[in-house]
């Protein structure tokens, strides 16, 4: 599998996600935001975490309009896989690839902590390696992760099964306490209609080794790589 990690000025978890992709067996290439095309044969586009353009104006707003995003949109329209993590999720929302928006955390503070997520479905390219309903231990690190959408959108996401992850306790129970940033319906990540674009606030790429906290994040990258092994 071949992944393209897009680097915007201010991206800062590009290295972390590249490490996770490589560990799972993907080839990885960095792509500068000013490019107009993706590398040939790109299977997966990753928009990494960070503070693109300082997150000035609105998180992800300026990056969402970068040159390379046209190529990303075209890739998604062809059914190609796109993964946006944290700032990447914000960029996906700002660029129109995913609905809704990430607002300031409910306590108005940046929060960095370990967090369990409930995997809502395991029949997508991103989550095959997990069980449905499994609680996975990852971490969050964001100031604006409060997922907000209008009632219509929310209804559609729920009824079409487009919610990918919810903040949960260790047992996979979705509780108010587990939803520290105040997201609607405890949403931590969502899919596009065709399930080929995933945006999520938490960082699976930071939990891929026992030494630094655990390996629950690996499943996501393993799922991606294995879906290509199957396809090929």
């Amino acid at each position, binding site marked *: 599998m071949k992944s393209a990690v897009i680097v915007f000025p201010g991206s800062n978890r590009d290295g972390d996600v590249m490490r996770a992709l490589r560990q799972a067996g993907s080839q990885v290439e960095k792509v500068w935001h000013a490019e107009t095309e993706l590398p040939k044969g790109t299977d997966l586009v990753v928009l990494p975490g960070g503070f693109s353009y300082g997150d000035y*104006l*609105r998180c992800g*707003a300026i990056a969402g309009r970068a040159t390379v995003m046209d190529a990303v949109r075209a890739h998604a329209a062809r059914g190609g896989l796109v993964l946006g993590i944290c700032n990447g999720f914000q960029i996906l929302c*700002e660029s129109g690839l995913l609905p809704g928006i990430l*607002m300031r*955390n409910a306590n108005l503070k940046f929060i960095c902590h370990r967090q369990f997520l409930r995997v809502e479905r395991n029949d997508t390219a991103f989550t095959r390696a997990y069980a449905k309903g499994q609680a996975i231990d990852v971490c969050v690190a964001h100031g604006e992760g*409060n997922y*907000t959408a209008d009632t219509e959108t929310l209804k559609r996401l729920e009824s079409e099964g487009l919610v990918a992850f919810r903040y949960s306790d260790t047992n996979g129970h979705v509780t108010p306490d587990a939803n520290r940033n105040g997201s609607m319906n405890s949403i931590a990540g969502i899919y596009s209609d065709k399930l080929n674009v995933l945006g999520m606030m938490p960082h699976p790429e930071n939990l891929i080794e026992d030494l630094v906290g655990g390996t629950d994040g690996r499943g996501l990258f393993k799922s991606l790589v294995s879906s290509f092994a199957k396809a090929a």
Partner: protein
Amino acid sequence: MKARVTVTLKNGVLDPQGKAIEGALKSLGVDGIASVRQGKVFDIELGTADKSQAEASLKAACEKLLANTVIENYRVELT
């Protein structure tokens, strides 16, 4: 020429920041504030003296970047 663009949240869009400010004002003992909604202003200097050209630039700036029209309204005033 100068302009001020004001971007505010649409009615009905939740404003966690405004809510938190309301709370903070209460705990600071500032009375009489019923609700707060936060928005942004942009003070812009334009390179042109032509009013219609300026207005076109400002509209483009708002639509393309300054406002997220899904959740925000904007207003432009030339000053």
